[in-house]
Structures are given as C-alpha cells and as structure tokens.
C-alpha cells in the first residue's frame, strides 16, 4: 500500500480570473486505498476530479498518475459521474464496451471481455436492454463496470449513489466494497454523506472553503472487512459527529 498512484504537488487552480479553488495543494494517494472526499458544495471536490481527468489544467504544480506527469491526462483514470451518464441509445453491453471501443478493441472482442463480468455486476439477462429499462441501482452498476473497463488502476467516483434510495444505496455501498476488494483498484469517492464516507474509506479528506491549501485528513478507525454495524463503534461515532461539525464550518479537526 505504499506505492503512490496519484499525487498533487503544489497544485493551484482557478476558473479564469475567479477566486482560486486550489492553492498550492499537496496530496498523495497510495495504491489500493479507498479515499473519500467530503466537503460543502462549491469547495472544489469536483474540480479536483476535473483536474485528475484532464478536463481542467492546473495553473501551477504537477499532477502525477502512477508516478507519471502526463501532458494529456485524458483516459488515464476511470471516471464514474454523479448521474450514471449512460448513452440512452446504447444497450447495457454497448455502454459498458465504450472504453474498450475507444482503446481500439473491436465490438466483438469487447463483448467477449464483458460477458463474464455481467454476472458479478448483477447484469446478467439485461445486457441487451437500454438504460431507460433499468433501475437506478442497475444503471450505476453499468456505469461502474464502464469505469472499471477503462483498465485504469485509479477510479474516480463522483457522488455515484446520491440519486439512489436509502436501501439501494446501502446495498450498493456493500457491493462497491466487495468489488474494490476484488479488483485491486484505488478509489477516490466524493460524497456528502458522512456515514457513507466512514463506512467505505481508509482515509477521508475534508475540503474546507476554497481556496483549498491543505486537506484535513481523517484516518477511519475501522479494519476490513467491515459491516454497516461497525458504524456504531464509539470511535467511529465520535468522528462522525466531528465531521458533521466540520462540514457545518464549526469545529476544526
């Protein structure tokens, strides 16, 4: 767990001439870590994802992915957006195949690659359905499968379960942890839900008000595997209260 897979070195960013969002920020994320990012709306969480995916370019500093400073970071990490963003005209199979097609793999070979994964993702039997025929949880699983198939070891998940109902959300969290364990990926996960952050992550980064200079970091005091009951652990409850206060702009950690 000591190999860094994602590093921000002295990174600054602002949208045009507006107030900076990130100000000389340093951050290191290690291989197979599950990191959750929480913070108020507009604090720069999604901007960080845009910087990592290369949709925005930092004004200063360096972003390293797997130790490399890429000129163009497009396609270097897997990205799962807040809304599932499945293409409504593509079937489940074709949506999942998108990153493989983009890397030059033929449709036929892509399908061969995806078929064995459908069962694990709970998508057997719906591979020829369109997104409009799927439930919210299923759509998110297709979206996650698509991000996995980018082949990158780093996955960015931007509030992926925020639109789901509470019960589906809990099942999806457990399912995600299972997949993360199996697939040996590093996950960066944005959420507003402190419980979700504590349940899923190794470390939690708290985004304060922009410009973000230093990330507040919480190491979750839970081992693995963990269950939802572990959230009742007194140490976890203490962190939960403090994080909620922190998000309210109250107590500093």
């Amino acid at each position, binding site marked *: 767990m000591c190999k860094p897979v994602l590093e921000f070195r002295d990174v600054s960013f602002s949208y045009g001439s507006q107030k900076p969002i990130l100000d000389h920020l340093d951050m290191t994320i290690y291989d197979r870590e599950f990191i959750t990012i929480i913070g108020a709306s507009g604090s720069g969480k999604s901007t960080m994802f845009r910087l990592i995916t290369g949709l925005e370019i930092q004004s200063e500093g360096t972003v390293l992915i797997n130790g490399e400073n890429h000129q163009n970071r497009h396609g270097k990490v897997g990205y799962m957006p807040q809304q599932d963003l499945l293409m409504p005209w593509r079937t489940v199979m074709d949506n999942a195949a998108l*990153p493989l097609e983009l890397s030059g793999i033929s449709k036929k070979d892509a399908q061969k690659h995806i078929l064995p994964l459908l069962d694990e993702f709970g998508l057997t039997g719906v591979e020829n359905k369109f997104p409009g025929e799927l439930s919210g949880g299923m759509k998110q699983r297709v979206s996650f499968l698509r991000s996995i198939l980018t082949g990158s070891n780093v996955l960015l998940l931007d509030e992926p379960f925020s639109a789901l109902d509470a019960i589906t959300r809990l099942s999806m969290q457990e399912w995600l942890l299972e997949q993360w364990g199996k697939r040996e990926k590093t996950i960066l996960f944005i959420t507003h839900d402190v419980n979700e952050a504590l349940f899923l992550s190794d470390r939690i980064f708290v985004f304060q008000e922009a410009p973000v200079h230093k990330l507040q970091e919480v190491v979750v005091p839970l081992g693995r595997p963990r269950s939802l009951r572990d959230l009742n652990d007194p140490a976890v409850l203490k962190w939960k209260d403090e994080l909620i206060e922190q998000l309210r702009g109250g107590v500093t950690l």
Partner: protein
Amino acid sequence: MKQYLPAAGLIVFLLLIWEAVARSINLLFILPSPSGVALKLWELKEVLLFDHLPSTLAIILIGLAISIVLGVGLAVWMNMSKIAERAFYPIIISSQMIPTIAIAPIFIMWFGYSIWSKVVVTVLITFFPITVSTFDGLKSSSKELRELLLAMGAGKKEIFFKLQVPSAKPYFYSGLKVAVTLSVIGAAIGEWLGAQAGLGYFSRRMMTQFDGAAVFAPIVLLSAVGIVLFVIVKVLEHKSLKWRKTE
C-alpha cells in the same frame, strides 16, 4: 388502430358535408363531389399511375436525396467549423424568406422543361428543415457526456460518431418528416410552372379544361404519396431509434 378512429371519423364527416354542399351547389366542374373525384380517379387510374406518378415520384425522390446529402453535409460542416456556421447559417435562414413560387420560373428558364428545374424547386423547399434540424441535433449533444468521453480519452472523431451523430438522429428524422411532406409541394409547384408530365402538371392541365374532378384526382394521389413517404420515414425512425420507446 383505435387511436386513429377520431381522425377517421372527422374525415368521413367532412367528406359527407363536402358531398352534400357539392350536390346542392351542383356546379361539379368547379366544385366536384368526393364521390365524383373518386370516380374520376378510377377512370384515370392508368394515366395517373403509370404516366404521371412516376414522373412526380422521380422529382420527389431525387430532390429529397440531394437535400439529404447536401443538408446533412452542410450541417456537419457547420458543426465542425465556426466560420462555416457564421457564413452559411444566415444564408440558409434567409433562403426561406424567398417566395419559392416567385423564384421557380427562373429555374424553368435555367433548366428548361427537364426534370432538374423541378428538382431544384424541391431541393430549395426541403433543404432547410433537414439542414437546420440536423445541425441543431449535432449541437444538442450532452456536455456531460462529451466530457465523459474526453475523460475516457476519446478524440474529436470518436466524439462525433459516438455522441454527436446518435444525438442528432432524432432531430434529423424530425426534419426529414417535414421535408417529405414539403417535397410533394415542391414537386407539384415545379410541375405547375413548366413540365410535360407529372401529377402537378396534369392537375393544372385539367384546370384549363374546367374538369374539377380531374383537377382533384391527381391531388388525391399527391396527398397519398406524401402520406406514404411520411409513414416510411416514421417506420425508419422507429427502427433506428428503438431506445426512445424505453425513455
């Protein structure tokens, strides 16, 4: 089928009123009755179907084909180049301000009585909905999906084929549905102004002979052509956009 019952009922009702009015006025050479038109259609079926319909259909299909190729081509070009958009878009819009009937005689002067004078009129009418709707469709693609594709490493070509083209398809079909109905009007206008065959030409010739039923008979056929073309586009749209049923 049930959904069409109100429309069918209304049509039957209007035809009955027309029949009654035409019979009471009793000037059938000016206002023929629907039954008279139907009889005339039956009487002239061979001339209309085998001499004049193929000629009109050729104008419609060639005109539509040219409009689709030019319209889609120009829409793609405007989508790719801001300069092309700025140069062509205002011209395309202003081209619709020109009254087609007024300008059509020029095409007869340029191309004579050949099929091309009529094809040009048809293209002038049908080009607009196809170009504008396709262009709007290409522009309508989701910004979020575009960014997702970029984040996945997609280039301009992939974004065009995997995102913009599928996003534009419903718009294209909407434009095409308008264009096929307009194409019938374009062909008929062209034929009125100068032709040696065609349903529009036949209708106009019968007008000079004060044969009201024979004026209407080719118009009924023209309407049928428009409806059939519309249905064909609708079927193609349905097959090509299966996913829309699931939305």
